[in-house]
Structure formats: structure tokens, C-alpha cells
């Protein structure tokens, strides 16, 4: 694979932004398969979680090796702590990642713009982001992968987790900056509500992305994931839910991204 680190100007963000891009290459060097050259490659938009950046997926998993024989490109943007949302007090991250980023990346690299060749996935904050962006722009993506997350505004018991104690105050402030309010119930039925987005699309009768959803049984996000499972499994959606043993960690995501890629292609 070829690996690009791209720094570029985003008009929506009003600043220089960063992304890592993996592009297929026929020849790889020893110990690694390549894939044949295409005019334009299918793209997986791979979103990071809270506290991560555009390099984290690369460093903590073997994503480059997993895609090397699949002939798909991977774009990993940096999204700070934005929840992939058009922030109430902050920048329009959703519009940036859903609309501007693909346009910029396609102007640089040989990436497909076809719906059936564009996919979006992520872990934790990136799992919510994938559902949100995928269902906000269902004409742009044919598949969504959500790891260790769900419809974020249905919190479950996340706040009661001791590991996240240091995040309590931070997540309150994040909720205000991102959504305008720490009262998540006020967000039900809005653009931040993934069930609402899905319901709107289902009503239109137009194609809706397939969804791959996985969460470990020891993960503090489990209640949130199950809440989403309960809702999505009742809809006319190609929806796969799995609950293997595991927790909210990179060991888990390194294993399950591979399963997602098998399901994807």
C-alpha cells in the first residue's frame, strides 16, 4: 500500500486539516500482498474515537495490511472531539467530513464517488459518527460500520463508569459545545438522533446503507449498543449485530475491523 499524510486547507473548518490516506499499490515489498491498479478505488472513510487523531487507526491496528489485498482506499480524517457534528459552539465537522473532505480527496487521489463504492466506519465516537454521517447522507454511502457505540444521545449507563471519571466534566462541556446542551433528552428526534435520521430515510423508500454493528460484552458502551440493536433490528434494514467478548479497546477493534472488512466486500 501507499500511505499518504495530507495537510490541506478546509474552507468549512477555516484552517489546515490533516488526514491519512491508504492507496492500493500492486507491488508491496516482502511479506505483503498487493492489489491490481484501478482507475478509481472504492473508499472506506474510517473515523477515529474521542482522544484520537488521524493516525491512531494506523498505529494501533494493522489496517494497512488488512486492506492490502482488497484494492480499497482508506481515508482517516482528524476530527478532534467534535462527535462528527456541526457543533453548536464550534465548527461544522459533519459538513466538513461528509461533503468537503470527499470533494478535496477526490480532487487529489483516484477515489470513486459511486455510492456503492463508498463506506463509512469508526469506533466509539467514530461509531456514532459513522451512523450519523452515513444516515445524514444516505445517498453517499452504501455501508456503515459502528464499533463499540450506538445512538450516542441514548446514554445508557456510560456516566457511571469509573474508567471515565476523568471524562465526566469534560463530557459535560463537550455536550454543551457540540450539542448546545448536556440534557440529551432534548436532542431526541433531532438531526443528532440516529433513529430519527434512519426513520426519515426509511419513509422515503430510498436505499438505506447496510449496517455492521459490534460491541464487546465487557464494554461500558454495551447498554448504548443494545439500545441501538433493539431499535435497528426492528427496521427494514440490512443490519448485523454481534456481541463477542471484549471491551472498549484497540485489541478489540483490531480484531473486529477485519471481520467488518470481510462483511463489507
Amino acid at each position, binding site marked *: 500500500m*501507499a*500511505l*499518504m*499524510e*495530507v*495537510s*490541506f*486547507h478546509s*474552507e468549512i473548518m*477555516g*484552517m*489546515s486539516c490533516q488526514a491519512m490516506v491508504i*492507496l492500493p*499499490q500492486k*507491488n*508491496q*515489498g516482502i511479506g505483503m500482498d*498487493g492489489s491490481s*491498479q484501478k482507475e478509481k478505488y472504492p473508499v472506506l472513510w474510517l473515523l477515529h474515537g474521542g482522544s484520537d487523531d488521524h493516525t491512531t487507526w494506523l498505529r494501533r491496528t494493522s489496517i494497512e495490511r488488512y486492506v492490502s489485498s482488497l484494492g480499497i482506499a482508506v481515508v482517516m480524517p482528524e476530527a478532534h472531539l467534535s462527535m462528527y457534528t456541526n457543533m453548536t459552539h464550534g465548527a461544522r465537522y459533519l459538513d466538513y467530513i461528509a461533503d468537503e473532505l470527499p470533494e*478535496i480527496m477526490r*480532487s*487529489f*487521489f*483516484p477515489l470513486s464517488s459511486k455510492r456503492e463504492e463508498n463506506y463509512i466506519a469508526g469506533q466509539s465516537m467514530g461509531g456514532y459518527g459513522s451512523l450519523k454521517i452515513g444516515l445524514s447522507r444516505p445517498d453517499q454511502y452504501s455501508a456503515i460500520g459502528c464499533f463499540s457505540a450506538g445512538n450516542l444521545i441514548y446514554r445508557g449507563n456510560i456516566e457511571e463508569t469509573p474508567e471515565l471519571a476523568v471524562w465526566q466534566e469534560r463530557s459535560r462541556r463537550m455536550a454543551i459545545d457540540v450539542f448546545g446542551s448536556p440534557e440529551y433528552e432534548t436532542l431526541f428526534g433531532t438531526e443528532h438522533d440516529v433513529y430519527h435520521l434512519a426513520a426519515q430515510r426509511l419513509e422515503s423508500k430510498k436505499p438505506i446503507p447496510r449496517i455492521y454493528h459490534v460491541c464487546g460484552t465487557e464494554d461500558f458502551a454495551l447498554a448504548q449498543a443494545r439500545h441501538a440493536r433493539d431499535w435497528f433490528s426492528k427496521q427494514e434494514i440490512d443490519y448485523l449485530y454481534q456481541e463477542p467478548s471484549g471491551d472498549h479497546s484497540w485489541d478489540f477493534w483490531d480484531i473486529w475491523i477485519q471481520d467488518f472488512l470481510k462483511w463489507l466486500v
Partner: protein
Amino acid sequence: MALVEVRFFSEALGMSRTMNVILPQQQNGVGQDGAKDSGGDIPVLYLLHGGSDNHTTWQRNTSIERYALSRGLAVVMPAADNSCYTDMKHGYDYFKFFGEELPQIIREFFPNITQKREKTFVAGQSMGGYGSLKLGTLYPERFSKVGFLSSMIATERLFSKADFSSFGENIFGSQEEASGSINDSYFIMDRLIAEGKQMPEYYCICGTEDFLYQDNVDFYNHYKDKINLKYHEEPGEHEWGFWDRNIQIILDWMVQ
């Protein structure tokens, strides 16, 4: 501007390599104008570094990104180690990489960079000047303009100084092997002239205090009436301040 650091596999070199690519954008941040829309056919400068440099050096030691952006140019800066852009006698096939493989890789990854000769240029400083002269003269159908700053022109240079001679030996074998080969700047230029093919335009720039000054003056005097060769000299030494100033002259000439 976008800056792309590309890590890729080179079949010619048999290893993983790095290059930096600057791509124009129409919009940029505060204090920087954008480039006009090139309609998906972006002019490109292959910018070759000198001995001891790498794929980042031009960027760090000059304002190449700002100069390129205002002229709407993409810039490709691969790492070349200390290879003199040559298929080394004891080493790797850097000329094969730069001459044959690199343009294919650029075409594969960056489909909006031009394939047109009139918008494809090569330039470099010192060892990179030698490389630019060589690439442009051996691939005249690919490059319309060749800029070379403070260049190594004669390979004899590497053999005349004791500390450089093992360096020269690994690259060229010996001065006898270099003479009259594709590694000989004069030989390849004479051959191209004799072939009567379409030639690039050339621009030679050197500082008057540069240790390579005489080599550059000699080259200019030898070819000024035989090929389209411009020349500029000014006070200056073999250093980055000189190259930062004078690359701008080369860029203006390239995009006019």
C-alpha cells in the same frame, strides 16, 4: 496548498520510499492566496534535492510551497539519498526509479497532475542540478524546461577530492566508467543535439563564490550557442538562502 507525504513501494529500488508532494488548492488559509482552477491538468515541477538532503529539505529550507502555490504548480520531491540520481554501480537503481517508475507512480496516485510535456518541468540544486540536467536531457520528450542551480556538472568533481572519491566509486565505478556514459553531462547533451530531437529549454544559475562556479560557467560557455540555455549568476555561495532566492527565478521562467 495541500502537502502530501507519500510512502510507497518502489519496484526499481526494491524498497519502501518516501516523497513529499505539494498540490495547489483554490482556497487556502489566512495570508495566502489560492491558485486558479487548472481544470484537472495541474502543471508539475519535479524538484530534486542535493547530497545529504531528503524529501523534506526543500520545504524546510525554502518557501517553495508559497512560491509554487502562487504559480499554481504541483511539486514532487522524492528522496534520492546520496545517489546522484544514478543506477549505482554498488547501490540501487535510482535513475530507473526517477526516469521510468516515478512518472508512472505520480500518474497512478495523482490523476489530476498533468501528463503534458509543456507543463512538466524538472529542477534541482547541487546533486539535484546534475539529476535535473540528466533527466531532462535523457527524457526530452517528457520535460519542456530544466532548471539547475549550483550544480554538480562534471563527475570528475567526485573523484578529485579524496573524501568524495569512495562516494564517486560506489555511484559511478570510476571516472573512466562515467566518461562517455549516460552519467556524463557533456556526452548526453552532445548526443541529444546530434539526434536533432526536440529539446527542453535550460536555465543554469550559480553563485559567484560557489565552489562549483567554474564548472557552471564552463558548461554555459560551451553550450550557449548550441542550445536554448539561459544563465544567471549573482554573488552567493553553495547555500539555501541562495537557492530560496533563485528558485523563484526558475519558477517564473517555467510558468511564463
